[in-house]
């Protein structure tokens, strides 16, 4: 990767090119800027990890790509170019036809994401038949095949069971089968393993990796868990307060992290592999308000390295240079940032 | 009779008083003036059509011996239960409450100072199946009232009057079902051909009034009697008979009885409509709205439900509706009873002060104004024969606060005088009227606590030990005579005051006076009604002197009827309710 994103989203060659995406919700207390100027490219077959805490805007982003904000009070601006077409400009019905067929989604909690009153098979067959004019029997055979491929044992029997009769892991497998049933080119997985136990998470992550190889889909994986993206992602974008603060290849983010917030995340996480369990170093304070975000750098009230006098952290808005290979929304000069990371940030890696 | 406002099923009977009907909705506020009993639509009607009677309260009994509601007693008499004597149709004033011969050839012969009464049946009077009405039927009907465990709810006067042996307070004769001591009864009531003779244990001067007012003495066919199962059965001796069965809560339809011969009937029953339909269970608002609307069948409708206060303006503002309204005195009076068991009320000056301070005007305003009630001067209804304003009650209608204050000072009790007023409450009207009384009393130096009771009211005030100072009371006479007013209410011997520790009977104020008791006894034994009336008047004067009661008001009946109704009349003969004896449907 040479630059984070190309200047022209249409000719970028990326499967998905998001440019200056903004999602706002009007509320009684004011306008919530859930996503505030997001730009990234995703190439075919690649995996992008979006990392952030609650309220960072990562899930809103995924729903904006799916067009799920349509018909709600949310306002979506910018460009979401998928395969050369701007999804924000096409009519509802065209977008609907693309959902599930070209872009599919896997949700966090498979129990609530599946309809409790319909069998798993019914719901997957429905997802298939809405985009493919096939008989029920053919669809059913296809779905049984899909269930088998995502590792659900005895799919002929399981297809007629209800979601509550599945275990958590099996449900997420079923969700994945539903997402893959139309061989989409893009899969958005929104915290796909957060609700699962760690051994099940391992199974699901393995499955995703295998299936990506098989289907060649691109994946956006949204998570708060750095461990999950470390395993899956080619590129990583770290979000804070509705904005990308840092983006680059996975290696860069883990071994050359440049943003103080990313440092904070790395340092505050207890590590299973840390021999020396030093005291955790939390990020002070609380996440920012999305209605009245802090002036200047949104992270400055919590930043241990802020330098108002020299850099104007509380007044100057830092930029996210998409032409960089490793854009970082920080006012500290890059050389200094690298030095700080090398000398002051313990990555806790053994 | 009790208690016009009581909400329970305790049988309430209103009989008679000479009621004046103020024609065309006029005459509001007149205290029982005399008037024409019929309205403008009362031009002699023609036969045919259907008359509808709309009402709320369901009939509890259609069995003559069990009926004890003024409305039902009147309807039964006019439509299907003839009696030996009845009140005449189409008469007003005193005439209306003079019994005339009906099944009997005359109004009865008394002997032995009123202890023996004899009636002879007319020829040609028949049941609805064509069989003759016999003396045995009369005797059987009378006998049924003695089966007090089966024939419940009726007036029961026969128990106290008939000359048969008693045991434990009840006659040993127990009616035609179990027939214990039947011989005693056969001796007391005898048939000789068509002549029936009643033997009483004391003079019963106004016995014909009782026959005309109640249905206790109606004939009954033994072969039709199924005891309690006959409660809603109608086996007619009158101009109409029941079509099909009576439906409780809904009503019934009465059609002409072909075996009724108008020639045998001298009471003036006109029997104009071909059908009379009685519908019960409707609300007051619906009934009166339908009568205001006056459309369809409702043109031929009458009711016994007063216009609700909320609808007065609708009636007043529409002359055609107002023309169809009538306002008459009812047989009911309201009054107060000082509790003679209360220490403070034992002081006669306090009782007088209470009477003096009582603001009847405010009380009536709270009841709904002059269309709901009118101030009264005695516990006896002004329309009863022998009525006279009680001279003891000199206060103006709105009370005399100054005089009351003075009386209280004379009484020598510390002021303010704390009193508790117990009344049958639970409705806004009753609570407001109680508050109106309290206001008048408190101005004069009383300090009143209000004590509203609901369905336990009579159980509480019948208890001589109840700690309260003043009670509310309501009454209507069983037949047009003071005999059914003051005597049952204030005879301490009859009511067991001072002898029965648990109950004061109907002498709720626990009043006891030898003088009054003696006058009542003399009146009961009087051979003529005039003599009796004079004695009851003396007793009332004494009651006033003792302030045994404080009169409040006479309830008014403010009714609507349909524009197609002819011969509309309300009179004492029909207990103040529409008289089906004269009413017809315009053709």
């Amino acid at each position, binding site marked *: 990767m040479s630059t984070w994103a190309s200047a022209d989203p249409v000719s970028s060659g990326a499967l998905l090119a998001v440019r200056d995406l903004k999602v706002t919700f009007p509320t009684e207390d004011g306008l919530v800027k859930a996503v505030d100027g997001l730009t990234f490219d995703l190439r075919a077959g690649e995996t992008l990890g979006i990392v952030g805490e609650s309220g960072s805007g990562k899930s809103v982003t995924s729903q904006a790509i799916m067009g799920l904000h349509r018909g709600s009070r949310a306002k979506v601006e910018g460009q979401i170019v998928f395969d050369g077409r701007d999804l924000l400009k096409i009519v509802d019905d065209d977008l609907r036809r693309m959902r599930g067929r070209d872009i599919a989604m896997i949700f966090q909690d498979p129990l609530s994401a599946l309809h409790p009153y319909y069998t798993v098979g019914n719901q997957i067959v429905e997802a298939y038949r809405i985009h493919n004019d096939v008989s029920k029997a053919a669809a059913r055979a296809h779905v049984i095949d899909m269930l088998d491929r995502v590792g659900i044992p005895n799919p002929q029997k399981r297809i007629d069971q209800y979601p509550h009769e599945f275990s958590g892991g099996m449900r997420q497998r079923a969700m994945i089968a539903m997402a893959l049933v139309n061989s989409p080119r893009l899969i958005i997985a929104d915290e796909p393993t957060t609700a699962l136990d760690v051994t099940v998470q391992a199974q699901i992550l393995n499955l995703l990796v295998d299936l990506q190889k098989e289907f060649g889909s691109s994946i956006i994986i949204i998570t708060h868990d750095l461990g999950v993206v470390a395993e899956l992602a080619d590129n990583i974008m770290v979000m804070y307060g509705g904005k990308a603060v840092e983006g680059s290849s*996975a290696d860069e983010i883990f071994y050359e992290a440049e943003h103080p917030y990313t440092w904070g995340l790395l340092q505050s996480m207890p590590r299973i592999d840390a021999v020396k369990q030093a005291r955790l170093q939390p990020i002070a304070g609380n996440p920012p308000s999305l209605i009245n975000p802090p002036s200047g750098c949104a992270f400055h009230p919590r930043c241990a390295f802020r330098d108002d006098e020299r850099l104007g952290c509380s007044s100057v808005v830092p930029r996210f240079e998409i032409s960089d290979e490793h854009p970082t929304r920080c006012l500290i000069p890059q050389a200094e940032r690298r030095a700080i990371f090398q000398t002051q940030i313990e990555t806790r890696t053994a | 009779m009790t208690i016009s406002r009581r909400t329970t099923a305790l049988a309430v009977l209103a009989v008679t008083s000479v009621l004046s009907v103020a024609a065309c909705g006029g005459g509001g506020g007149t205290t029982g003036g005399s008037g024409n009993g019929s309205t403008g639509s009362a031009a002699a009607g023609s036969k045919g059509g259907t008359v509808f009677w709309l009402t709320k309260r369901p009939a509890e009994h259609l069995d003559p011996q069990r009926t004890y509601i003024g409305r039902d007693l009147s309807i039964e008499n006019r439509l299907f239960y003839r009696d030996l004597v009845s009140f005449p149709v189409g008469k007003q004033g005193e005439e209306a409450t003079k019994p005339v011969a009906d099944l009997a050839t005359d109004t009865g012969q008394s002997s032995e100072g009123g202890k023996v009464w004899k009636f002879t049946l007319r020829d040609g009077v028949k049941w609805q199946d064509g069989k003759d009405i016999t003396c045995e039927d009369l005797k059987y009907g009378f006998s049924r009232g003695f089966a007090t465990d089966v024939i419940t709810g009726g007036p029961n006067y026969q128990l106290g009057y008939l000359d048969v042996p008693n045991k434990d307070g009840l006659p040993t004769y127990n009616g035609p079902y179990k027939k214990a001591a039947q011989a005693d009864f056969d001796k007391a009531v005898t048939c000789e051909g068509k002549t029936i003779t009643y033997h009483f244990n004391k003079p019963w001067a106004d016995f014909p009034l009782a026959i005309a007012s109640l249905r206790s003495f109606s004939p009954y066919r033994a072969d039709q009697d199924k005891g309690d199962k006959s409660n809603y059965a109608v086996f007619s001796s009158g101009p109409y008979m029941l079509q099909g069965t009576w439906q409780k809560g809904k009503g019934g339809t009465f059609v002409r009885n072909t075996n009724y011969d108008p020639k045998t009937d001298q009471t003036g029953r006109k029997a104009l409509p071909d059908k009379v339909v009685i519908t019960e269970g409707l609300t007051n608002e619906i009934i009166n709205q339908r009568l205001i609307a006056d459309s369809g069948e409702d043109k031929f409708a009458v009711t016994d439900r007063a216009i609700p206060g909320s609808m007065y303006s609708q009636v007043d503002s529409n002359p055609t509706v107002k023309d169809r309204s009538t306002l008459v005195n009812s047989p009911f009076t309201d009054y107060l009873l000082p509790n003679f068991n209360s220490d403070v009320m034992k002081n006669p000056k306090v009782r007088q002060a209470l009477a003096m301070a009582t603001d009847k005007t405010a009380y009536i305003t709270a009841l709904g104004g002059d269309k709901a009630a009118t101030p009264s001067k005695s516990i006896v209804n002004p329309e009863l024969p022998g009525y006279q304003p009680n001279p003891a009650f000199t206060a103006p209608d709105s009370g005399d606060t100054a005089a009351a204050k003075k009386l209280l000072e004379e009484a020598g009790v510390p002021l303010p005088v704390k009193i508790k007023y117990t009344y049958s409450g639970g409705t806004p009207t009753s609570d407001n009227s109680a508050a109106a009384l309290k206001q008048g009393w408190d101005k004069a130096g009383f300090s009143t606590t209000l004590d509203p009771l609901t369905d336990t009211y009579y159980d509480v005030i019948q208890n001589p030990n109840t700690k309260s100072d003043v009670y509310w009371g309501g009454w209507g006479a069983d037949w047009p005579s003071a005999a059914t007013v003051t005597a049952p209410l204030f005879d301490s011997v009859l009511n067991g005051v001072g002898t029965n520790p648990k109950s004061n009977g109907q002498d709720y104020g626990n009043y006891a006076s030898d003088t009054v008791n003696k006058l009542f006894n003399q009146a009961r034994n009087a051979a003529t009604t005039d003599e009796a009336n004079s004695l009851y008047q003396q007793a009332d004067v004494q009651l006033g002197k003792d302030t045994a009661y404080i009169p409040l008001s006479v309830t008014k009946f403010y009714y609507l009827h349909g524009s197609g109704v002819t011969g509309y009349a309300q009179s004492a003969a029909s207990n103040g309710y529409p008289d089906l004896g004269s009413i017809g449907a315009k053709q």
Partner: protein
Amino acid sequence: MTDLPTSGRTPDDEPAAASTSTATSTPSSAPTSTPTSTPTATPPSAHDASRDRTSGASGGRRFSRRRKAADDDVALGEVILEVTDLKKHFPMHTSGIIRRAADPVKAVDGISFSVRKGETLGLVGESGCGKSTAGRTLLQLLQPTSGSIRYKGKDVTNADPKELRKLRNEMQMVFQDPYGSLNPRQTVGTIIAAPFHIQGIKPEGGIKAEVQRLMERVGLNPEHYNRFPHEFSGGQRQRIGIARAVALRPKVIVCDEPVSALDVSIQAQVVNLLEDLQDEFELTYVFVAHDLAVIRHISDRVAVMYLGKIMELATRDELYENPLHPYTQALLSAVPIPDPRRENKRERILLKGDLPSPINPPSGCVFHTRCPRYREDLSEAERTRCTTEVPVIQGEEDHRVACHFAGPPKVDVI
């Protein structure tokens, strides 16, 4: 100086006489509070790490409070809580017109361990393993089905309500859901003051002053005394829950997933707070969690649970660096590490299938149905042993395993 095995929190200048060191009896044997010296039980690294963490401002304070501990029956590092063969079964009934008792859900099925004053025992496992039930049964929020709980050497398993009330003074709980466990209609002041009112205790200076002091101590603004829970963020709510739990200066706190609902950056704040409070008040924690990284960070010793039973119980670093139970190995190997290069090299031990029902757990070793070692490495005869014989937890004091064929993993799990 004497090392205190596993607790590792005694300052260097602690007089040796004050603590002759402790050890727990083996859970399967009769409970005893007699300390026996096993100085070799604690690997030095654990001790050092703890000291790193607790060095600094809190060290002095901790020492000054050490004297107070002499009033207690239990000195720092001695067994304060001992659980023997604890079972919690939830009754079930049959279907049919007349219901009969059926096989119960064996949520906790015979666990034994001891906790020493001042240490943190981590209770880890996946959902349905019984760790939360175990925590609640420990506090007798749930009535144990059988087994015994000894607190300060005294059997409190079936304490009468009066004793229980006293016990609740000393044993508290911090819950997972910081919002769900706080009454939304009460102010924070009222919530934190509740234990004083319930137990009828009047702290010096009045309840309000004490509550505000507590709020300050857990990092809340004392001026927010009159605010309601919904006005606080998730992390702050958990601080409220912690303030409430430490209000009565308890000796033992059961923390049930106290940080799993929180974001990473906030989670670290709360973990640090819990550690500071432990040092300051000499608290003993039973820390129930599913996050193996958090458990590794906070615990002195760790018990791994599966289907109501303890699979492996060891000092922290023993467990993580030398896991002997195949289940522990699979569990550890499943945790993704935020280190892509390492992650790419790791080989996962994947478990097959789903968790069996706790109503009819597998015979013999409950883990055998999913055990990679059973599946891949054992002979037929050995397998028979797994399916018929329930393994007893056994081994060195600092590392005990319930596996017939315990041994190190074939690959590096971390």
